[in-house]
């Protein structure tokens, strides 16, 4: 035990002086009010009968005196600010959990967030820090930041604690412990204090060479949250999107609630869900409007952790494309193009084709008439002098041996066992990208020139002996990929990202890009085109004329589970559970509290004439 406010000598001296003064006051004879009465006859009788009570009266006098002296002692002790000592000259790293689960608040914690409780616990540690010891504070969040390096200055440490904020991201305890151990290497009496809600993996903590002391804050509470969330195109039913989500109930009781789907500000659907205790449900949803825009999923439930009750996605708005199909007749191709509601398709025969036609996309089906316009073009089995690529004879029979599955045109497509016969051998020009080959011969060529995109496929989309692609699942996907690519749409899978993970934006070199955060502030992208989202919501990235919206979500079962993990006592040297109740203050606070309670008792009993 040591004192922060006063020295021991000062405390004893002040207590002695004040207690002496109190005793003197008690010893000074009271000036009593004189009162003339008819006779003391009755009073004598009463006092004779109450002799036992007069003994009690003396006792009460002593009790009153003792209460007063105790009050003085407690107040002086509170002013002295006592604290419990730990081993001196040591170094302590305090790891303050600032992960998303620390934002949970519950009535059993007096509606304070776990992070606030953790801050209070850290403050107590700082307050009880002996002058000869130093402390370092590490914030455990999406990144592990050193809030304050080793110091003995309580003001600096307290300021660091006061000014830090919790993040909405999961934490990386391994990295934090590694940082703490590394910082403590070579120091005497090293100590790690982990202030957390207990949502950390015991196995990860067990790896720490220095066994951490644990201060556990927050009461275990039930919670329901979204633990998985993904949106992607639904290829079986182009061009819709499909949302996959997982909801987990980490509580000890069954829950019934609604799941609400919003597109923009419009509530587009509501699903009732009944979820048993400690269970998980996976579902999907696909009834989105092609207009795209922000998508939001919300759990209509009031629990301790609202952050995991929402998830966000963003669907890029589908641009309507004016398309022209130049064909002598191809039911498969016509159907595939018409299936996309964003394409306004017009069909002409090669004879009717106007060489200056201006469309968003022109598809030449087995023909290659003269074209001098600037539209994007898709050539299928081009023939003749106006073919965009040169040909060199025919391929009698071939199979596609290699293709670029990462290219937007060929994503999710398999050419396995696709038989190709009697197709022209294409010759790629300078600047052309060969996306698929049969042996060394290009089969699919893409070209980007002067803002115009051209794709040439060596085979057509007819069911013939040349190729049987229209009979394969790859056919509609290829058509849809082509439409997206021509429309210059980015893949939507990149629009959802987990919080705390860097998001990479493919920007043109030299262009400056900025990110508009969910709270409206703007930050610059890093030089590598990445940024680290620390809040859930929508991030709008702008680089020149290009822009992209990225939605960021907390989908973390470990953060949503608000019940401390089993086995923490095994991997830590001490567990101090600190809920948000009354016992979260320094010792002086309780001394003062008891002192004032004693004073109140004395005052009350005096007023009620019990101790007089």
């Amino acid at each position, binding site marked *: 035990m040591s004192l922060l406010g006063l020295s021991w000598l000062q405390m004893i001296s002040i207590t002695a002086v004040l207690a002496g003064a109190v005793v003197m006051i008690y010893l000074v004879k009271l000036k009593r*009010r004189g009162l003339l009465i008819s*006779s*003391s006859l009755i009073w004598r009788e009463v006092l004779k009968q109450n002799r036992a009570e007069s003994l009690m009266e003396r006792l009460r006098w002593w009790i009153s005196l003792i209460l007063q002296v105790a009050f003085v002692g407690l107040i002086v002790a509170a002013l002295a600010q006592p604290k419990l000592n730990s081993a001196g000259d040591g170094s302590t790293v305090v790891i303050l959990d600032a992960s998303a689960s620390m934002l949970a608040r519950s009535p059993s914690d007096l509606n304070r967030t776990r992070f606030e409780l953790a801050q209070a616990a850290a403050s107590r540690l700082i307050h009880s820090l002996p002058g000869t010891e130093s402390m370092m504070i590490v914030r455990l969040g999406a990144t592990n930041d050193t809030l304050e390096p080793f110091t003995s200055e309580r003001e600096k440490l307290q300021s660091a604690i006061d000014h830090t904020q919790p993040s909405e991201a999961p934490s990386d305890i391994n990295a934090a412990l590694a940082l703490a151990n590394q910082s403590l290497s070579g120091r005497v009496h090293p100590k790690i204090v982990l202030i957390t809600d207990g949502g950390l993996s015991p196995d990860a903590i067990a790896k720490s060479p220095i066994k951490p002391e644990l201060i556990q804050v927050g009461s275990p509470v039930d919670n329901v949250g979204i633990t998985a969330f993904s949106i992607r195109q639904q290829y079986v039913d182009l061009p819709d999107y499909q949302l996959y989500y997982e909801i987990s109930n980490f509580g000890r009781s069954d829950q019934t609630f609604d799941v609400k789907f919003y597109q923009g500000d419009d509530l587009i659907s509501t699903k009732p869900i009944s979820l048993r205790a400690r269970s998980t449900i996976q579902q999907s949803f696909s009834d989105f409007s092609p207009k795209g825009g922000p998508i939001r999923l919300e759990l209509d439930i009031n629990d301790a952790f609202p952050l995991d009750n929402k998830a966000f996605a963003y669907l890029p708005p589908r641009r309507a494309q004016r398309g022209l199909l130049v064909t002598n007749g191809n039911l498969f191709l016509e159907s595939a193009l018409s299936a996309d509601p964003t394409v306004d398709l017009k069909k002409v025969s090669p004879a009717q084709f106007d060489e200056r036609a201006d469309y968003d996309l022109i598809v030449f089906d087995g023909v290659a008439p003269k074209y001098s316009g600037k539209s994007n073009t898709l050539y299928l089995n081009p023939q003749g002098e106006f073919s965009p690529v040169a040909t060199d004879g025919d391929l009698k029979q071939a199979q596609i041996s290699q293709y670029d599955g990462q290219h937007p045109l060929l994503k999710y497509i398999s050419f396995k066992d696709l038989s190709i016969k009697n197709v022209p051998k294409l010759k790629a020009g300078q600047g052309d990208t060969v996306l698929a080959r049969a042996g060394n011969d290009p089969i699919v060529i893409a070209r980007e020139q002067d803002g115009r995109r051209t794709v040439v496929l060596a085979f057509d989309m007819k069911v013939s002996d040349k190729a049987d692609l229209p009979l394969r699942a790859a056919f509609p996907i290829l058509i849809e990929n082509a439409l997206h690519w021509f429309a210059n749409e980015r893949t939507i899978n990149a629009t959802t990202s987990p919080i705390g993970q860097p998001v990479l934006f493919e920007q043109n070199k030299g262009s400056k890009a900025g990110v508009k955060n969910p709270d409206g502030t703007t930050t610059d992208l890093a030089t590598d085109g990445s940024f680290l989202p620390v809040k859930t919501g929508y991030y709008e990235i702008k680089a020149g004329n290009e822009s992209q919206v990225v939605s960021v979500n907390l989908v973390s079962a470990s953060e949503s589970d608000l019940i401390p993990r089993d086995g923490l006592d095994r991997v830590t040297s001490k567990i101090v559970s600190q809920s948000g109740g009354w016992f979260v203050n320094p010792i002086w606070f309780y001394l003062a509290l008891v002192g004032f309670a004693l004073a109140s008792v004395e005052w009350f009993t005096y007023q009620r004439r*019990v101790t*007089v």
Partner: protein
Amino acid sequence: MLFDEEFLKKLERLSIVSKRVFAGQMRAERRSRKRGSGLEFADFKQYLPGDDFRSLDWNAFVRLDKLLLKLYEEEEDLPIYFFIDSSRSMTIGKPSKFDYARRLVAALSYISLSHLDRVSLVPFSTNIEDDLPRVRGKTQIHRMLRFLEDIKAHGQTDLRQVARTFLNGSHRRGLVVVVSDLFDDQGYEDALNMISSQRHEVFVLQISDSTEAHPPLMGELRLIDAESGEMRELTVTPNLLRAYEQAYKVFCEKLETFCLQRQIGVLRVETSQDLEDLILNVFRQGRFVA
């Protein structure tokens, strides 16, 4: 004027009740054992020479042929002794018990004088002070009032000594009305026993102030006994106050029990009571006056 005319007229219609019949000295309005010239028929006796033949019953003579003399009750005065406590304990209260007692005695005396009773005022504290012996008739009321006004409160109560002094004097037996708060360290019992045993009829009017039954006291106090000057320091707590009130209640109950056992009339009078109401209603109900 101590009392208004209307009240005095009402008082004149009252008389103090005496359960016993005492022998008076002078003719008055009270029955006595003596046969005399009163109005109430008492008995017959054989006429003897020398008797007042004006009382012969001529009707009886006609019927019985005997000379029978009608005897009448002699109506005599009643000696009433008002013992007025003039100790210092009577000075307490607003109005003081002493003032209230003097007004009460004045009213009762007026009643008695109106009925030609023989009234003696006996102020006392440690002993009997100068008394006003045996006044009779309404004409004496002013003298009596002056006497009452001149009494000063002082000294301690010693009822036993007072009784002893009184009984040693040559007083005719009569009604002794003790007007006192009865705060006597030696006790009132012996005194009342002594007076009662000498065949006086005793009636006790216990004068009390409302603050004696329920004293408004609390906290650190130094209580000063008005009679002895004795000081007692004490802390009055609710418990102690309750104990006092209980003790005072017991004190009053003991007095009533004591008086009841000895056929002594007793009435407790609080100084807050209206005097007119007290005499015209309370005393009537208590059969002290009729």
